[in-house]
């Protein structure tokens, strides 16, 4: 007896305080989603592709310098600025709160990337290439994109679908934590937590209530589905206390 599946809304929590900038998520994502290798020259050309990237900033003057890490991925906004500008519906919003990208429709106007305030979209300037040794590591569940199209984080939609199918086969709902995008799975400090906010017993809720909770560029009203938890800096607190 199959009951119609519960409505889903996938969200991710990024705890900036826990992030150590180890780049494990980046590598995992690269492997999972068939993202072409980024050579040094490509980085220098500012054309590197990382569906999730760690932005590193230095704070303070030497000797007491602090490294600050900001993991950035597609925010899957509810009012995504990238969606309406696409002339061919290559990107739109599905009913699970995902901002999906349809590679076959894309003609490469790059309008979406321009209008993305989080700079989370990546364009294939060249035909993606892998060294012979890497051919077999390509993920069969994920399309290999051709040149001239846009791509971006999909919250590992292939894993979500897999989880949903399993649940359906066993005639139950998707359990919390059952579906994990590669980045969240690889994160050693659990700085990335993924889940379904509509799921009553999802552990997302506790984070969402947290007072460290903030949205990136909230003033734009894009209503992102990626929630950030701010850095806790004890020294800074002390300084503030003294002042």
């Amino acid at each position: 007896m199959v009951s119609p599946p519960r409505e889903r809304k996938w969200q991710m929590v990024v705890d900036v305080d826990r992030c150590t900038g180890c780049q494990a998520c980046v590598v995992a994502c690269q492997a999972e989603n068939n993202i072409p290798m980024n050579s040094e020259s490509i980085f220098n050309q500012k054309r590197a592709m990382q569906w999730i990237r760690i932005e590193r900033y230095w704070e303070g003057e030497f000797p007491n310098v602090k490294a600050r890490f900001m993991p950035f991925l597609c925010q899957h906004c509810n009012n995504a600025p990238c969606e309406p500008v696409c002339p061919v519906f290559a990107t739109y919003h599905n009913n699970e709160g995902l901002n999906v990208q349809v590679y076959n429709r894309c003609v490469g106007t790059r309008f979406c990337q321009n209008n993305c305030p989080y700079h989370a979209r990546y364009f294939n300037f060249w035909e993606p290439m892998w060294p012979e040794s890497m051919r077999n590591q390509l993920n069969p569940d994920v399309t290999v994109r051709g040149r001239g199209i846009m791509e971006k984080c999909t919250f590992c939609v292939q894993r979500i679908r897999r989880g949903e199918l399993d649940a359906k086969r066993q005639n139950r709902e998707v359990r919390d934590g059952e579906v994990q995008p590669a980045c969240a799975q690889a994160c050693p400090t659990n700085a990335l937590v993924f889940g379904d906010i509509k799921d009553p017993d999802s552990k997302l809720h506790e984070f969402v209530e947290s007072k460290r909770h903030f949205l990136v560029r909230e003033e734009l009203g894009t209503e992102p589905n990626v929630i950030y938890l701010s850095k806790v800096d004890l020294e800074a607190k002390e300084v503030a206390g003294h002042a």
Partner: protein
Amino acid sequence: MAKMLGLFKEEEAEAAANATEALEHAGYSNRNFEVLTGSPYPDGAFGERETKHHLYVFPFMGALTGLSVAILLTSATQAAYPLVVGGKPILSLPAMTIISYEGTMLGAILFTVMGILFESRLPNPAPGIYDPRITEGYIGITLSVADDRVNAVEQLFKRAGAADVIIQR
């Protein structure tokens, strides 16, 4: 019946005008003869009959057609495959307005051009009696007369000061 074309020099437009008057005295009303010129002259300069046209109807018809087609296309295509983008409504009126506007103008322009060709009776495969000198500034007066009156009309043209008279039987 014979077709006749009286040609008057550019600088002798007055003579041409006299000729038309003479024709009217000779019993040819201004719906019998036609004036051919190499450039536009003010209405009624040669006492020719006044032009009635309904060109102004065309743009409005075109605008309506274009508007309805555009609205149909935009609304139907959005409804046919309802995708939510950027939290905007499925029927985004402002966006539709812009495209409908362009459609309206396109329709208006196309119909107007058709109207112009239709009202000025172009293309015209059989233009009838004509002389290349007209595009050189000569003013031509053409009419079809009964064979027995050809000479009379020819004399009339000559008397008015026609540079040349062409007769086509």
